[in-house]
């Protein structure tokens, strides 16, 4: 038992930290917001440090309920980074935006959500999976409607909650089918049941579990909440939604697919390939008409999930490694582009969200425009940006596994997506400046954007070798 407790050290750090901070918030009130935010970031860093040791190499904890392996640790690093960024940028955003102020619950909720996400990526049992997922989601529902007086934010929260509850129901139904037909909720035993032979009940369970997971990663056809929620939620919360829970849900989907349902690969592969192509094509086509940058990025994230699923469809260790690599680059691109959105304020300091308001950005804020161009081209997968290497990795995995037609359709469809990324570049670089734009005055945000832009620029190639080693090690943990 002691060994198990050491293996969940990051979750313990986060839980205790969140609980203590909640008490501090209760007594300290509004005034303690800033201190709590920075302490939360410190706790996330502490949880990251706690990953060194048994938490990333311990193996099974609590009799198989929980996995402490390199795969989980890799995903958790990404989750903690994304969560920390979402906390860091919040105070300034709420300060400058009229309406609600930042309350100290915000960082605490993100910490609790991080606990849930940690459980998701380390789940070794369907129940751990579900508890982790719900913990993450419940915190997220509250965060989506954090600006209580803003109708859009409230709508986003409600929509997210109703559809999320539906998805949880579907997932639970799938879990109950799997449990009913295999007699267990442990991933290893479920894998044995799938390996034992064909069973209609187990196949149905698989379909429902994947449908529930598809909602969480916002893959088509379970994507419809994404644009509304991304648009309505306050931008720092959107930053969080687009990065950390995506990583958690994707890593969870990979773990369930490989560890629990590995013997049924041929069955879930059909679902994954459909969701993948549908997401790539729909995400690309639907984004073309968007005028709101947050909605555009929401469709872009749907599009990117499609590419992530290409790697999963390969079903090999190489495929899983490519998914992890893609996730790493995706987090950098998403954080970066949403941080740029955060800088979009008119002279009076109010946030603007239309793409048109970016026009002529390259003349007013050349550095910011350059960073945004790097993010857009990287999301489109144009070399020499790192987003290209990510696409290279997933498609290489698919081709190596023999799915050439999937690669052809997916890659050709990515050209459609390029159109709307180019449109953003066009607005920033070709159009004449329209209206004044507030000067950037936050060193922290500027620094974060710079780091993300340098990472996805050709300079990031230098990190390809270590990242390749890490993702391969993490992927091997599942096989």
């Amino acid at each position, binding site marked *: 038992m002691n060994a198990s407790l050491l293996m969940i050290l990051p979750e313990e750090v986060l839980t205790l930290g969140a609980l203590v901070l909640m008490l501090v918030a209760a007594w300290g009130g509004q005034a303690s917001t800033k201190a709590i935010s920075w302490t939360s970031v410190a706790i996330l860093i502490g949880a990251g440090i706690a990953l060194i040791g048994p938490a990333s190499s311990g193996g099974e904890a609590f009799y198989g309920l929980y996995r402490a392996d390199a795969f989980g640790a890799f995903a958790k690093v990404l989750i903690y980074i994304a969560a920390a960024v979402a906390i860091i940028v919040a105070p300034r955003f709420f300060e400058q935006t009229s309406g609600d102020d930042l309350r100290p619950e915000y960082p605490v909720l993100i910490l609790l959500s991080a606990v849930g996400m940690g459980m998701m990526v380390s789940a070794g049992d369907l129940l751990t999976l579900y508890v982790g997922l719900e913990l993450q989601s419940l915190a997220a529902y509250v965060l989506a409607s954090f600006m209580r007086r803003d109708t859009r934010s409230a709508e986003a929260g409600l929509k997210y909650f109703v559809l999320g509850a539906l998805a949880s129901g579907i997932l639970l139904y799938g879990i109950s089918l799997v449990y009913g037909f295999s007699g267990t909720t442990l991933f290893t035993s479920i894998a044995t049941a799938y390996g034992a032979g064909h069973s209609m009940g187990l196949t149905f369970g698989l379909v429902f579990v994947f449908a529930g997971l598809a909602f969480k990663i916002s893959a088509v056809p379970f994507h419809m909440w994404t644009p509304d929620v991304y648009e309505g939620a306050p931008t720092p919360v959107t930053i969080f939604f687009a990065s950390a829970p995506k990583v958690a849900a994707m890593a969870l989907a990979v773990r369930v697919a490989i560890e629990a349902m590995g013997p049924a690969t041929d069955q879930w592969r059909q679902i994954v390939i459909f969701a993948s192509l549908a997401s790539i094509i729909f995400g690309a086509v639907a984004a073309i008409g968007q005028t709101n940058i947050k909605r555009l990025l929401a469709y872009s994230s749907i599009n990117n999930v499609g590419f992530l699923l290409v790697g999963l469809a390969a079903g090999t260790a190489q495929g899983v490694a490519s998914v992890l690599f893609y996730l790493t680059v995706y987090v950098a691109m998403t954080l970066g582009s949403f941080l740029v959105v955060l800088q979009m304020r008119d002279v009076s300091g109010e946030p603007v969200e239309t793409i048109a308001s970016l026009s002529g950005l*390259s003349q007013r804020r050349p550095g910011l425009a350059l960073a945004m161009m790097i993010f857009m081209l990287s999301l489109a997968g144009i070399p020499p940006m790192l987003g290209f290497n990510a696409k*290279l990795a997933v498609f*290489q995995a698919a081709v190596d596994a023999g799915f050439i037609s999937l690669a052809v359709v997916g890659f*050709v469809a990515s050209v459609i997506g*390029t159109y709307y990324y*180019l449109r953003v570049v066009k607005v920033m*670089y070709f159009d004449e400046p329209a209206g004044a734009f507030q000067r950037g005055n936050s060193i922290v945000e500027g620094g974060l954007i710079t780091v993300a832009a340098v990472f996805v620029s050709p300079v990031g190639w230098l990190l390809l*070798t270590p990242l390749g080693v890490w993702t391969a090690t993490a992927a091997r943990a599942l096989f």
Partner: protein
Amino acid sequence: MTGFPILTVMLAVPAIAAVACIFVSANAARWIALLATLVDLVLGIWLWAQFDIGGPQWQFVEHVPLFGKFGWALGIDGFALMLIMLSVFLMPICIGASWIAIEKRVQEYMAAFLVTEVLMIGTFAAQDLFLFYIFFEAGLIPMYLIIGIWGGVNRIYASYKFFLYTLLGSVLMFIAMLWMAQFAGTTDIPTLLNTDFPVHAQIWLWLAFFASFAVKMPMWPFHTWLPDAHVQAPTAGSVILAGVLLKLGGYGFLRFSLPMFPEASAQLGWLVFGLSAVAVIYTSLVALVQSDMKKLIAYSSVAHMAIVTIGLFAFNRQGIEGAMIVMLSHGLVSAALFLCVGVIYDRLHTREISRYGGLAINMPKYAILFMLFTMASVGLPGTSGFVGEFLSLAGTYQVSTTITLLCTTGIILGAAYMLYLYRRVVFGDLTEDDVRAMPDLSFREVALLAPIAAVVLWMGVYPESFLAPMRADVGTLEARIARAAPAGDSLPTPGKHVTPVAHGEAHQ
């Protein structure tokens, strides 16, 4: 060869200069760009001087396994050397051509051009499949910006069309590359050049590469992006587009399609021949009726590129050498022609042919240089155009007389549209007052055009300088594709043997 990583330095110089340009004033950016491109030109000349003709196939090889799956692998053979020379030669001229014409956002403009130079040299020097693709595709970004920001009225449409059209062509090639890397277990181009892919797979791979190179080239009917891009791009943008970027397609056929998929190349050669023959005749006729000078030259580019493709797919030495010389020659001549258009566009701000006339009277220097390039484009003996077209068509004649017959009409039509253009612009009477007021070439403009004129004549009179570095590589390529070479339809048949009769015997 030497331990000095000259290719990396040639890539680094413009890359560093591009970054530097962003942080300085407009005038300083101009000088930095000019200096960097001249340094690269000097390095290029040194590269040529050091190139060991008849030495190993790949020279100046650098290999650092830097990026996990693929390495920083550079190295050149004779083909790459010549095309790198073309790039570094045209680059300072492009900067010079933009010296005054570009007034807004000079720093970004110069940076974009320098990045283009990096990517072009990188494309020709890459020895790793993925590294090649990265350089090849990344070239779209600076050209997109150059057309979109500094282009003409309809620049947005042209920039999108250019980017998406060429990207769509390339993605299929990328999938083919993934498959090849998996099949051969390596991404090293020299190794892949000697890998024999199964014939049925070759067909698919060839088609995927064809999709990309045919668009880049551009071959009819995939050429429609070219006139738009050319007309809207600023002068220097057109120069670099016609001068070097169009050569990427030909280089791709030469480097990948032919040696990697010889059987497929032979089996699908009819496709290339057919499209090329249509291109020569159709685009020449289209060029004949253009009223916009840049459009006319753009269409003539498509016709010239068709001569390149038939030469390449002739599977023999004359054809391949001719194709390379046409590429080099067209790179110089079309660049010069776009500069000539740019010269008068800068003065009158219109490209309408009918607005000009009688320039020989008030711009004699211009008329002489323009005539030289017109003649070179037509393919007059003594100019570079003749050497290339003659070799290419001679090579093709051994394979197909019909195609040669059709493509040779391109030379006649080429003479028609180029001389017609020249007559309308340069001869005739000076009727317009504003045309009469146009000054002759300035020193800067002469300095831009004179070096090209010199090289065009050099290549026309003594092409050996340019053929020698490529000779061994053409031999290697020919040996590689010999097993699939199609039988020609014009093999000399044995004639009636005439027995020489001694004088006087007839009288008996």
